[in-house]
């Protein structure tokens, strides 16, 4: 009896230390600390190596020219860890325009998201990024604005050398068939319709009931389509830790590109098709009281995953319709963006769609 007891205790003490070891190679992603960049901006290779090994997501932040900026680096995104200079030099700031240059002399080898916190709010949904080389500006992509206390510009630069300029995209630039761009967020007058929808502001497309639509597969049109969730990058601490694995490192699930649709199709039909063709998981549920489908989650990022006010919203030509996506009839050259909100649309400029 005593002998057995001693044997058991010995076994317990032998095996207990092994419990702490980490040998698994399929670690789920986890959120690491925020690290302030040193004066020089250089981050040593061993930091990246550790992030890669432990599959950690780390934010590096610093201030340049009075403006706070932050890199969100995914451990899973790093291929070959090396010493990198993450510093940027912001050279000029003016309303709706910012110019900066990378201190780094080489590309990082991965594409993290750069978030620049502006001191003044820009009056724009999105911005265009230009590359400056020999005084010639070439547009290289877009940046998304997220409002969280202050306005944050999110974008993932495809290269990390040289100088860039970000300029706010004014509402007039967006291709739109609406006649008057005035007061995009003002409410129309009148009462709610039978599907509980507030009156649509003047000049904006009215909802079209899905039952009234006949899709004509002979006539094809094109529009611009994108799905992005960069607001999560700015609220990583609120995100369900299990979902860190499905978050795209550059915050973009489907980069803006031209897609085809058939005459009479609704926006929901297009979303379903784009997701299927590109293998993106998407779940929607039909909601009879709004006579529309409600998109619960795209790419396993669901409503309520990033705080109680989070979910998917859609934006057409810079305006968030206040009705469901099955009731939006697509038009030629529409610019459609599905965006993830963490604060009932307030952070992505879509508060008007939820009646505020």
């Amino acid at each position, binding site marked *: *009896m005593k002998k057995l007891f001693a044997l058991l205790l010995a076994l317990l003490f032998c095996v207990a230390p092994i419990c702490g*070891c980490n040998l698994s190679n399929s670690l789920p992603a986890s959120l690491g600390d925020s690290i302030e960049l040193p004066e020089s901006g250089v981050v040593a290779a061993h930091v990246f190596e550790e992030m890669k090994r432990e599959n950690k997501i780390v934010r590096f932040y610093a201030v340049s020219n009075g403006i706070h900026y932050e890199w969100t680096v995914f451990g899973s995104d790093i291929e070959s860890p090396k010493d990198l200079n993450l510093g940027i030099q912001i050279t000029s700031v003016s309303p709706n325009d910012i110019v900066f240059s990378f201190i780094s002399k080489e590309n990082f080898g991965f594409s993290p998201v750069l978030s620049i916190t502006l001191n003044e709010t820009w009056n724009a949904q999105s911005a265009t990024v230009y590359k400056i080389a020999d005084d010639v500006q070439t547009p290289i992509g877009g940046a998304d604005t997220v409002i969280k206390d202050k306005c944050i510009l999110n974008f993932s630069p495809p290269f990390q050398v040289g100088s860039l300029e970000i300029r706010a995209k004014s509402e007039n630039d967006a291709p739109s068939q609406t006649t008057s761009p005035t007061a995009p967020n003002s409410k129309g007058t009148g009462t709610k319709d039978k599907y509980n929808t507030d009156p649509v502001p003047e000049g904006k497309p009215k909802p079209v009931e899905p039952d009234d639509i006949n899709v004509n597969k002979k006539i094809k049109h094109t529009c611009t389509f994108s799905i992005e969730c960069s607001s999560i990058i700015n609220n990583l601490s609120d995100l369900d830790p*299990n979902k860190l694995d499905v978050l795209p490192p550059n915050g973009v699930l489907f980069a803006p590109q031209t897609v085809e649709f058939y005459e009479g199709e609704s926006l929901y039909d297009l979303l379903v098709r784009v997701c299927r063709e590109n293998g993106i*998981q998407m779940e929607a549920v*039909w909601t009879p009281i709004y006579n529309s489908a409600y998109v619960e989650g795209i790419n396993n990022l669901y409503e309520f995953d990033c705080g109680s006010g989070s979910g998917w919203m859609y934006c057409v030509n810079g305006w968030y319709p206040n009705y469901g996506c099955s009731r939006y009839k697509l038009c030629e050259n529409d610019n459609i963006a599905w965006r993830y909100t963490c604060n009932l649309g307030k952070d992505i400029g879509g508060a008007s769609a939820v009646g505020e």
Partner: protein
Amino acid sequence: MRGRDAFSNYHPLVNFLYFCLIFGFSMFFTHPVCLLISLFCALCLNIKLTGAAALKGLFCFSLPALVAISLINPAFNHQGTVILCYLPSGNPLTLESILYGLSAGTMLVCVLTWFSCFNEVITSDKFIYLFGRIIPIMSLLLSMALSFVPKFKAQFEQVKQARSCLVGRDVTNGSLLKRLGFAVSCFSIMVTKSLEGAIETADSMKSRGYGLPKRSAFSVYIISKRDKFALLWLFFCAIFVLCGSLSGCLFWRYFPSIRGVLIRPATIATYIVYFALCITPSIIDIVEEIKWKYLHSKI
């Protein structure tokens, strides 16, 4: 006292602690290896205790329930990164949701099988012995409630046979409407009988002074050396498995993508101890049987 298996002859505290641990672990571990260990041990013990009835329960209820749950879950749950195909509703059918359904089904079957073992081992006298002093009314009520279904089934059979013998009013006789009428009246008899039985039990327990502060109850249970050893073993296993689970050795998640630890040394150690814990009653029975046969052969 039931003498059918050696584990039932242990002190009620050992039996009860064992089942508490098993219920807790079976209900909270979603790790597939733990589920399989628990299912295997539950079936072993159940077959040992009830024999053919266990197999009947397994094939008539448990397996269909398992299949039903693993089919129903993917119909409502569309999370997961591996898309197999698309359902008519337009939502994806994912591998993760099917596997999650399977794991949930296995867990249900496990816990039900363990409960059937619990009913065999923890008889109402053991239950009253354990809780009669601390919570007299609750324990009487619980023991009556726990024995209600098996008792109801046995009495139902009796009533059915009596009725078919005496007046031929059986559910197998007559037209559909008549048969329905017989079944309803049989059920009504049963309800009356069990209500009356409950009141009689309560009255009789009261008249015997059950639950009075200074009254002692007769019991033949004493904690022997063997029981102390068993308690120690249970504590050791429980602490080991708990440490393993808290240190992340049994980490497993299904959504959004399947991630977990499978063959880390610490994880394997935890599997072994968990298996040892689950299989304990079956091993005790087998060892006792071997001992008995050995002694028998010596005579």
